[in-house]
């Protein structure tokens, strides 16, 4: 009897909660989409603004649709207007960034793989202190090293050069790449290495034959992380380079700030998109690895 009572009131409750549930789900989607539009809004505005003429920009609103697919401001942002002095455009700086990113990512990833390998598979006395020693480099505010770095680059004769920036990004990438590889190799069974050692395999042979073939995921994570960090860097780029050796973020900032002529917002937005597109493509294609790097290397911010 009591059981019956219970179940009927339970049914009522279930009926009621069905409506509340439906309402809740609508509310849920409403909030999620609201936030999605907040996040997408600047990207949308950038794209439509870059496709408008200045006339359209003055007449329309932020959200209004461009009259057609007009890529003129993209061409201006990338290749300039073709009159000599004062004509800044992104193409040379884009290549500067490529020339800076590729070696810096390669060196920092390679060094990180090696240190991660030693710290987990060739352990020595005090190795966890060495790891902590390297890890601390993830956290320092770079302001504390800017002054001596500027002097060192000057002393080495590589200030205001791509080589100098490659050195800077390689060095300050090492703590992160070490962290990534160390945490990955920790979970690789050490027995594999021990067995190979008994078979007479040496230090490098074990790395290249056993560790490297299974490292693909962590290499992808590390390369994406380093690529994004270095491509997006502004502090080092703006402090240690200027003029023709500047990377793209510095050039973009200079272009937007230059007050020589009338503000051309469509060109500004096209430039911003060009500077953001490489990392955005990587994010869309390899989001999973991007997020993994973010959650484990995020201490840097």
């Amino acid at each position, binding site marked *: 009897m009591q059981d019956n009572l219970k179940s009927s009131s339970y049914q009522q409750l279930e009926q009621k909660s069905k409506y509340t549930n439906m309402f809740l789900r609508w509310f849920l989607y409403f*909030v*999620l989409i609201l936030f999605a539009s*907040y996040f997408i809004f600047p990207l949308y505005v950038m794209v439509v603004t870059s496709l408008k003429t200045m006339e359209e920009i003055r007449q329309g609103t*932020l959200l209004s649709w461009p009259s057609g697919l007009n890529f003129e401001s993209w061409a201006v942002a990338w290749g300039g207007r073709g009159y000599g002095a004062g004509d800044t455009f992104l193409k040379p700086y884009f290549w500067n960034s490529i020339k800076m990113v590729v070696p810096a990512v390669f060196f920092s990833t390679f060094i990180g793989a090696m240190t991660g390998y030693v710290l987990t598979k060739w352990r020595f006395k005090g190795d966890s202190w060495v790891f902590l020693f390297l890890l601390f480099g993830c956290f*320092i505010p770079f302001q504390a*090293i800017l*002054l001596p770095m500027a002097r060192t680059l000057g002393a080495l004769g590589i200030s205001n050069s791509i080589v100098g920036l490659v050195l800077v990004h390689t060095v300050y990438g090492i703590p992160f790449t070490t962290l990534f590889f160390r945490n990955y190799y920790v979970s690789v069974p050490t027995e594999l290495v021990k067995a190979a050692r008994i078979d007479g395999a040496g230090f490098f042979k074990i790395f290249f034959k056993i560790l490297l073939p299974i490292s693909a995921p962590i290499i992808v994570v590390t390369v994406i992380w380093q690529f994004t960090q270095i491509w*997006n860097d*502004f502090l080092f780029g703006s402090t240690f380079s200027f003029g023709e050796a500047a990377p793209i973020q510095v050039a973009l900032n200079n272009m937007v700030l230059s007050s020589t002529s009338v503000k051309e917002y469509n060109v*500004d937005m096209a430039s911003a998109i060009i500077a953001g597109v490489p990392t955005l493509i990587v994010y869309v294609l390899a989001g999973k690895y991007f997020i993994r790097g973010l959650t484990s290397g995020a201490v840097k911010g």
Partner: protein
Amino acid sequence: MFKWLEKNLPKIVMAPAVGLIGWFVYGFVLWTLYISFTNSKILPKYELWGFGQYEKLWASRKWLISVDNLLVFTALFLIFCIVIGIILAIFLDQKIRAEGVLRTIYLYPMALSFIVTGTAWKWILNPTLGIQKMFIDWGFENFTFDWLVNREMAIYTIVIAGVWQSAGFVMALFLAGLRSVEDEIIKAAKIDGAGLFTVYWRILLPMMRPVFFTSFVILVHISIKSYDLIVALTQGGPGISTTMPALFMTQAAFHKSQVGLSAASAMMMFMAVAAVIIPYLYSELRRENAR
């Protein structure tokens, strides 16, 4: 000889990394610390001068405004990022359709540089052609939104752009945290009659303590170091109303020939970061050792 080489090969391979970090991180920080105790102006001088630069720093109106801005920014940045991040994570955790697409949208700002997003926000927030004009064109004729050029309000535009950039990241951290909780715990709570709200408020969120901690540390770290966004959005202006410590440091060092003063400001930033990071590292290590 060969034997020695073979035996010490791992250490030799480690040496470049340790050497580079030792020199470029520890050596450089110590150098900056030393210079902060000298009376260096355009060029570094090496005779000690005591705490003069720190006294000058804390007597500087610009530095005090920087610190004030940093506190306001950090507080709001933390609150909004964490609240929005948690809401999005919990909502996304409800077996949502198109979760992957939404997640991608929430997180894509993290892939862009602050210069790119700062440029976009500067355009959106500019009073002549941006949001203000949009609302006026829609018929709200008295609508004003001039925060970007308003001394009192400009700092909040940096909050808006900063939160937009980083909230999705907090969402990712919390979503990962929520997904790692075993279903059994939630089921057991539901059998005991707990509603969804209670499950989250009483059980899941308290379990997310480490995630809160991590987000807190990362966000404070981002805000102390924030530099690019301010350069792109306001250059510290109008006037010096949105200046922050990182901007103060680079300006003193590279534009105003106040090398000693900039070193002192860099060391203040260093100490602020250390005050947050050292307890964090300590607790992380303890957790790892406990495992």
